[in-house]
């Protein structure tokens, strides 16, 4: 083999690796293994599981680095689990970085995800020195140890026993030896014990634990919701806002702390009459959240046109109810706040009440709004859709292609919140326009830069540099 042939084959390998990685990252943004409108949950899980195995087997180092890219929590947990389960395949040179990534990922995951991940490792019998050390360190975190032991009692015990974690302090009596048999000096443990006998003690406990005990003591729902107020997390506060208002308590939701998609999902869960009544409040919620997201991402775009899919398929499924529509609504809110001039065009014009009144309805005619968007000559054209255009089939992709030729200055991007299990990627509208999986509206700036990179077909070296920077930023956030 000549030197140039070796070089050519290396380039080819790089190309394949780059495409595989993009495919995998895309899947990890969009797929949660749940049922979608067009695909069932089982197919999604099988397809995603295959991708994970494939990438893990072939590009272990890259696989670990995906943790730093902000893929969804379900996939982060799966990556951590797979890495820990196959620890002996780690090359010695990568060991330190992989350890750092796994540790950091576990600590940044939401607690419930992390606890269930640890429990899952125990269930699957993954027991090696690294897993044990990681579990022990996670569980021993002094600031939240007692809280986790109470709120995730079963998972905590199972993971701790599995990882041979020392049951220091009062953990032993609390988890192993019958908590009823003594008084605790740890305040949370003591409240947990007292809560089983006295209704007044439950209000120091986490909401999920207290809720069951309140039922046991027959506490009236209004009284319980009122008094447990200070213990609610932001998400619980949002979830219970309706119930609290019905009980005559202020909902008191801090909208700026909620991600845009979650607000959108909440808005879409309301009836049209409720949305109409609360338009000002909900619009304010979007503004507050978008403003915070823009501060943290420092994103700014010029003239932006957004084509948003509100066809019937954006209803999602009973597991991901109205998720594609919520994502579209959230992206519209984010881009409106992050651009100099913004125009949002829905597949079916929204009713007079404005975007907040949007419902999943009608067929998917993306071509007409894309043409209308092109007439505004934007710098950035974002299409948010599940990629199934059917009015008529395949036209949207062709219009995008033609548009790309007519307006070479306009950068086009298709964001897809839905993973298509058969093609191992979010369904594309056209090969000429990059299609990326989308999880949160706040990810849009990242995705735009990834798409620009893919469109300019940068080299593997550049990609590695970019990844490296992301990984360092991810690890530097470590506390």
């Amino acid at each position, binding site marked *: 083999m000549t030197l140039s042939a070796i070089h050519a084959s290396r380039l080819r390998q790089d190309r394949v690796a780059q495409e595989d990685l993009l495919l995998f990252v895309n899947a990890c943004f969009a797929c949660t293994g749940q049922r979608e409108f067009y695909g069932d949950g089982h197919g999604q899980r099988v397809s995603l599981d295959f991708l994970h195995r494939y990438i893990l087997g072939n590009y272990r180092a890259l696989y670990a680095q995906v943790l730093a890219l902000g893929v969804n929590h379900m996939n982060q947990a799966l990556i951590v689990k797979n890495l820990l389960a196959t620890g002996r395949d780690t090359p010695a040179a990568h060991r330190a970085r992989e350890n750092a990534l796994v540790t950091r990922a576990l600590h940044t995951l939401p607690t419930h995800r992390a606890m269930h991940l640890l429990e899952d490792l125990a269930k699957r019998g993954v027991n090696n020195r690294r897993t044990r050390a990681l579990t022990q360190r996670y569980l021993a975190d002094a600031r939240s140890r007692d809280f986790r032991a109470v709120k995730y009692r079963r998972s905590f015990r199972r993971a701790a026993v599995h990882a041979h974690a020392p049951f220091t302090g009062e953990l032993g009596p609390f988890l192993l030896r019958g908590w009823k048999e003594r008084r605790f000096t740890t305040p949370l443990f003591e409240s947990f014990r007292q809560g089983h006998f006295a209704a007044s003690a439950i209000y120091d406990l986490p909401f999920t634990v207290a809720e069951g005990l309140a039922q046991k003591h027959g506490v009236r729902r209004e009284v319980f919701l009122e008094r447990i107020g200070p213990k609610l997390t932001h998400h619980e506060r949002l979830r219970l806002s309706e119930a609290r208002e019905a009980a005559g308590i202020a909902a008191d939701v801090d909208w700026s702390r909620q991600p845009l998609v979650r607000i959108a999902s909440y808005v879409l869960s309301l009836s049209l009459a409720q949305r109409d009544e609360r338009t000002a409040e909900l619009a304010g919620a979007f503004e507050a959240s978008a403003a915070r997201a823009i501060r943290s991402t420092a994103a700014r775009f010029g003239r932006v046109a957004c084509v948003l899919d509100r066809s019937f398929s954006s209803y999602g499924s009973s597991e991901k109810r109205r998720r594609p529509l919520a994502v579209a609504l959230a992206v519209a809110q984010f881009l409106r706040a992050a651009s100099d001039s913004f125009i949002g065009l829905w597949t079916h014009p929204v009713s007079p009440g404005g975007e907040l009144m949007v419902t999943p309805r009608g*067929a998917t005619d993306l071509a*007409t709004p894309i043409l209308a968007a*092109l007439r505004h000559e934007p710098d950035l054209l974002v299409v948010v859709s599940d990629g199934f255009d*059917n009015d008529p089939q395949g036209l949207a992709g062709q219009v995008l292609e033609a*548009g790309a030729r*007519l307006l070479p200055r306009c950068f086009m991007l298709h964001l897809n919140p839905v993973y298509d299990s058969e093609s191992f990627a979010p369904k594309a509208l056209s090969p000429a326009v990059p299609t990326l999986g989308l999880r949160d509206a706040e990810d849009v700036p990242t995705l735009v830069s990834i798409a620009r990179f893919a469109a300019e077909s940068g080299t593997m070296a550049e990609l590695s540099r970019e990844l490296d920077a992301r990984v360092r930023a991810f690890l530097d956030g470590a506390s």
Partner: protein
Amino acid sequence: MSAALTALPGLRAGSPQVMGAFRIVPLLRESAPGDLRIGKEAYDAYGVVRLDGLPEEPGLSYVSYVPHGLVIAHTQDGAEATLGASIFRGSEGKPRRVKLHHRMVKARTADDGSARFRMLPLHLAMEGFLALHFRGPDILWQEYSDQAARRGLDPRSETSVRGAWLAGFEDAVRLFEIHEHQVGVLVFVADALATVFVVSHPDDYRKLHLSLLEDFFGELLYTYALLYPESPRAESRIDPRAVTDLDHLAREMDRVRTDFRHYTELLAQGLFGRPAHTETVRDLGAFTLQRFYPDFDPREECHIGEQILRRDGTVEYMKTFRLSHAQVRRAYLLEKLAEAEWDLDRAMVLLGAASKTELLKRIANAGFGYLLKPHLVRGLPVDPQSR
């Protein structure tokens, strides 16, 4: 003999949505007057329908599984018709196994401005098909059996398949995205027209969309759904390099839509391109309820159906059933026999049979052996495949 069925005036075919073997084309109507409304009444039971006489007397009955009936409300003066609340009640208590119906089309009392009647969709058309030459030979030629003389074709039966049993149809119907102004669909299985379903008002269509699964289909379509997991691809492309500006692009988009519409029309030729016989079942004043059937030509696709037409010819309701080849052959045979006044020698010529034995064999294979004297049938080489 009437003219060809007009290709649904007042309605516009939208873009097809393809799921597996099924191509479902929405039919759109921009403004529905609302003076004819259609609702569903669920039975989910075997139905015995008395076609003549009173329920307690002996007489002619039609027996089939009848999942639902349609209630049709209409007004004469163009005012909004209302269905009333009563028809939407579910079945109370135990589901009935057999339900007795009186007539295919039965008037309902209504105390408000709308006149209402109940009909059994598709069974109306099917009953018409089964009743073709039902009385049997007019002249008792010597070959015909006693049963043929006494009871005609009775009992006459055909088989069909529930929509839910067509492989993949359930998913296709569930995933279909209903348009805002949609009043109907054309359903194709592997690009063969399976059924046309049209109602008058978009809101009614939205409610009746899932009832497609309860309709019945010919066994031909059942086979097609199994044999062709994917519909043939049909596409019309825009050449991105040839597009000069955005207006040109808009024109090209219109062309693509028109291409799809033409393709749909092409596929539906088997129904709309052929002459049909219509028979008025009920005159409703401003509307007429008809059933129709084509010339039964074994080389062509044949659809039977029922429709409600406005005075100006607008289709306010339509439902069709595609006959399988065996069914068409049976109808063709009966038609030719009747044309020859049931004289087997003349029928032999009309049907192009080489010998009388061949004709007898054809009659027996079509399932009408019971019309012939047993000794004629006994010696025939019966082909079990042909039924």
